[in-house]
């Protein structure tokens, strides 16, 4: 049984390898200029938060992007980050921040189709380091 499976795999092995190489190459020629949509998780980066505060929030959001297949690789889409400016937060408490397309900086060749969630609930607390230094 094992030997028959082995011989099945080894029969015309060169033809199989060549077919896979050509199959992939033709697929790449046809597919790399096609527009595709993909949903990926990207991390959220908060900036300009007062040093005395700490925040608790979701770490990632789901975004659906549309671009040519080749652009996804060339423009390194998988390393995108959502940037949210928190300079307006001056005191502790719970905030609801509306996510906007501007928060996700994308190359103009890539379209943002959708993102989830559309708003973030964040909790701002005083920094523990700060509390320790006071006492």
């Amino acid at each position, binding site marked *: 049984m094992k030997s028959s499976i082995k011989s099945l795999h080894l029969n015309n092995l060169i033809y199989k390898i060549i077919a896979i190489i050509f*199959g992939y190459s033709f697929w790449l020629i046809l597919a790399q200029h096609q527009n595709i949509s993909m949903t990926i998780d990207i991390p959220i980066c908060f900036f300009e938060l007062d040093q005395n505060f700490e925040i608790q929030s979701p770490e990632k959001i789901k975004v659906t992007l549309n671009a040519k297949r080749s652009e996804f690789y060339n423009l390194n889409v998988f390393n995108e980050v959502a940037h949210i400016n928190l300079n307006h937060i001056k005191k502790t408490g719970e905030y609801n921040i509306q996510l906007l397309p501007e928060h996700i900086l994308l190359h103009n060749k890539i379209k943002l189709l959708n993102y989830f969630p559309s708003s973030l609930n964040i909790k701002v607390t005083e920094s523990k380091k700060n509390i320790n230094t006071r006492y």
Partner: protein
Amino acid sequence: MAQLLNFLLIYKWIDFLEISFLSVTIYYFSLWLKRDVQKNLAPGFFTLCSIIILSYALDMNNISNFLIIFMPSILMLFILVHQNILQKNFISIKNIAVPKIKNNNWIDLFMRHCLNLMNQNKQITCAIEGRDNLEGFLINEININTPVNKEIIDLIVNSSIFKENKIVHINYQGDLLGVNAVWNTNNHTFWISEEVRNIEIWKQDSLLFSSKTDVLVFKLCPKKRNFDIIAQGKIMENLAIAPAVQLIGDFIKKNIKDLHLRKDINEIINKESSPKQPYI
């Protein structure tokens, strides 16, 4: 792994499905092309694919666009060039199912009897059917369908019903299918080239059917004490006994081994090896 897939621009499982579909299509098409051993088209097909991919990779846009646009026509050309196989299958649609070989040495036995008959100044023409079924193309006056053996050959050849100018029909498994067989030739003169028209009728018919099926036809000439063999659309005349017997033996063995015997028969002819046993 994820990085490799990312590098290969494969992002979804459906991409694997598409690549598999293309690969399987190319694989089976190239295997089909490979089956035409008279003209091995598979390397040509691979070269064409390589040129398309290279021209695309090297940004030779005109060449790559030209080749991609005309790809269906080029594939049709490959299929048309391969038509020899198609034509053969069209003529002889049925292939004989793979059987158990009853007796590997039947050909030695049969050839020994043939040579005995030659010593008795009897002429014999024999068609050995390969995997392509000759039913409808070779019409047996008397159907026998029994394994070849000395007694039956002696009985038939010495009887008054046996006609020396007709064909003894045998298959490669060693079954004597019939005697006094004739080719069913329905006005095929337009198939035949001028030079072939001048040769004997049995050779003309045998050439036609051997070029389209895997039948081997041979004739023993008691006067010249040699063989005329026709296979794969080729005539080998005045072959001495030893190489002829070797050639027929190799033909049978090859037919047993390979589904599609279309290998260069000249290789077999050129082998000058003596038979294992004396035939006379």
